[in-house]
């Protein structure tokens, strides 16, 4: 695979307020990359720089090994699904989707064919002549997706494209988008703050916080081996624990020394430890590595979310067997369930 897009030390400030603090990121051809981070962390800003709507204050952006900072947006082989759709209110659904094709002077015949195909793809057949202002939020989003996709760009930027959909439609569209991306073979750069969506769809996830990349990796990397407390906390629910790395493969927390699989820390280095709720198991008191009392339990559809209070903290446990509130229980986990991370800001 070839590098299609490279961000090199991209910095952006708005009137002195630093929004992106030196982004270095490579995006491969045909990759599904997700930018994941909390609201206001700079995801949209990064996309807008790539789309050509604003210019970075420092650093370079390469597209196909060419620096594109001075290339106007309409000359970039990139299309965008905007966060707030930005559909043209004076045009109907058909004309919105056909806009890009008509600009390129495509014959009306082909326009009709392609738009019809797109409408089918996004499940809006029969809506050709509707006013876009009269569509529901979800329908507008799908028009926005169709309007961008119909141009068959090399790169598609999607800024929280499924934000307004209900859960069912959202799941459907996730699969649909993933399928389209595989079929058409284009690079998707997808912005979301929904970690589940990021985990299910992406080839690569870029976790951003306050304008800084926290971790780049595959969904399994990010989930299983979060590099710091922020990532662990942001991706899925976590039990995050302060501890000390005594030696390679030996970590100390909550007053006990545990065997683990991590190494390469300094002796007695302070670390953050994460144990995923689904890696914890509730066992009879005497069989647990830690012990505590059940203080709450919540049925979550597939599993129970049980909170166990130990002398040092509360652990969240996801398990399929319920335990009544008040019971004294043991907590069990395996050595590979302990993920040791550097303290934030010290790496």
């Amino acid at each position, binding site marked *: 695979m070839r590098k299609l897009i490279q961000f090199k030390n991209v910095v952006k400030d708005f009137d002195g307020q630093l929004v992106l603090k030196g982004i270095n990121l490579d995006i491969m051809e045909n990759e599904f990359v997700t930018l994941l981070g909390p609201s206001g962390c700079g995801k949209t800003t990064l996309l807008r720089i790539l789309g050509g709507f604003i210019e970075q204050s420092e650093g370079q952006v390469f597209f196909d090994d060419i620096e594109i900072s001075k290339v106007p*947006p309409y000359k970039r082989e990139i299309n965008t699904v905007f966060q*707030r759709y930005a559909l043209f209110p*004076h045009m109907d659904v058909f004309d919105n989707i056909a806009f890009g094709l008509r600009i390129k002077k495509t014959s009306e015949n082909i326009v009709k064919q392609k738009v019809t195909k797109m409408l089918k793809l996004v499940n809006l057949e029969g809506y050709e002549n509707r006013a876009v202002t*009269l569509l529901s939020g979800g329908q507008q989003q799908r028009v926005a997706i169709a309007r961008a996709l119909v141009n068959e760009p090399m790169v598609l930027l999607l800024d929280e494209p499924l934000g307004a959909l209900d859960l069912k439609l959202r799941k459907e569209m996730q699969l649909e988008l993933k399928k389209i991306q595989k079929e058409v073979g284009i690079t998707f750069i997808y912005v979301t703050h929904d970690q589940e969506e990021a985990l299910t769809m992406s080839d690569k996830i870029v976790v951003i916080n306050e304008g800084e990349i926290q971790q780049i990796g595959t969904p399994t990397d990010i989930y299983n081996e979060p590099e710091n407390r922020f990532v662990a906390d942001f991706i899925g629910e976590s039990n995050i624990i302060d501890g000390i790395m005594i030696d390679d493969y030996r970590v100390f927390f909550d007053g006990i020394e545990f065997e683990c699989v991590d190494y390469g820390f300094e002796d007695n280095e302070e670390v953050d430890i994460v144990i995923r709720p689904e890696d914890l198991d509730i066992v009879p008191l005497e069989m647990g590595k830690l012990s505590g009392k059940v203080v709450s339990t919540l049925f979550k559809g597939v599993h129970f979310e049980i909170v166990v209070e130990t002398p040092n903290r509360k652990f969240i446990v996801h398990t399929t067997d319920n335990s009544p509130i008040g019971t004294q229980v043991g907590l069990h986990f395996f050595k590979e369930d302990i993920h040791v991370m550097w303290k934030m800001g010290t790496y």
Partner: protein
Amino acid sequence: MKAFRNLVKPYLFWMGIFIVIPMLLIVLYAFTRQGNDVMTLTFTIDNFVKFFDPIFLRVLGKSLQIAFVTTLISIILGYPVAYYVANTKEKTQTLLILLITIPMWINMLVRTYSWISILSDNGFLNVILKAIGLTPVSLMYTDFAVTLGMVYNFMPFMILSIYTVLAKMDKALIAASYDLGANRLQTFLRIVLPLSIPGIIAGITLVFLPAVSTFVIPKFLGGGNYMLIGNLIENQFITVGEWNFGSAISLIMAMVIMASMILTRRLDKDVEDSDKGVNNGNGGVMYGR
């Protein structure tokens, strides 16, 4: 609530005394013969028939023509100004809008009068022309001078009305257009211009109506013999004293204005229909913000 509703009463009273009654009086005058007192009214339509004389019709035609040209020039000159202002920084916008509206703070009579000292044969313009060795021109008392005065006085309304629409337009729409491959000109023609039509139409109403009925501007810049419909009416009332004929012309004028309003409304509606129900009658593109 109810107490608030009572606040409208003084205005209703005001409207009754100063708007409705005078209007009824105009209608009364228009349909009666001159010289009779209130006791012995003789109704007639002579006043209207009298108007359908080539002399008067030409005055009407000329008024419409000059108002039309004024409106057209206001659009052509005003649109780029509005576009420019709407695309500057917010602070600059406030300043520029202030500059555009400042002349309106000064009485229209004074503003128009000052044009005389610019345009007249020994005026400012000709002094400059002579100074740089060009032949002086005689501009006063021409269609040019009258139209100039009207454009000067009424174009700010056009600018403001277009500016309001442009400033409210969602910038993301323009970004989306660029994103889909349209260059600046294409984006302007396909997105910005169609979405600003409600502003233009509002501007047409605001410029055309005063332009068709003003009598101050043609009187000063057109000279004593220059007749537009506004002057005609003024003459009937003040110089000739033919209140009945003056009232009839006023009514005819009102009909013409109403017709032209209906026409622009229709235009607005057509645009809205092609917008497929987007209600931007108030100029707002209330969308995607």
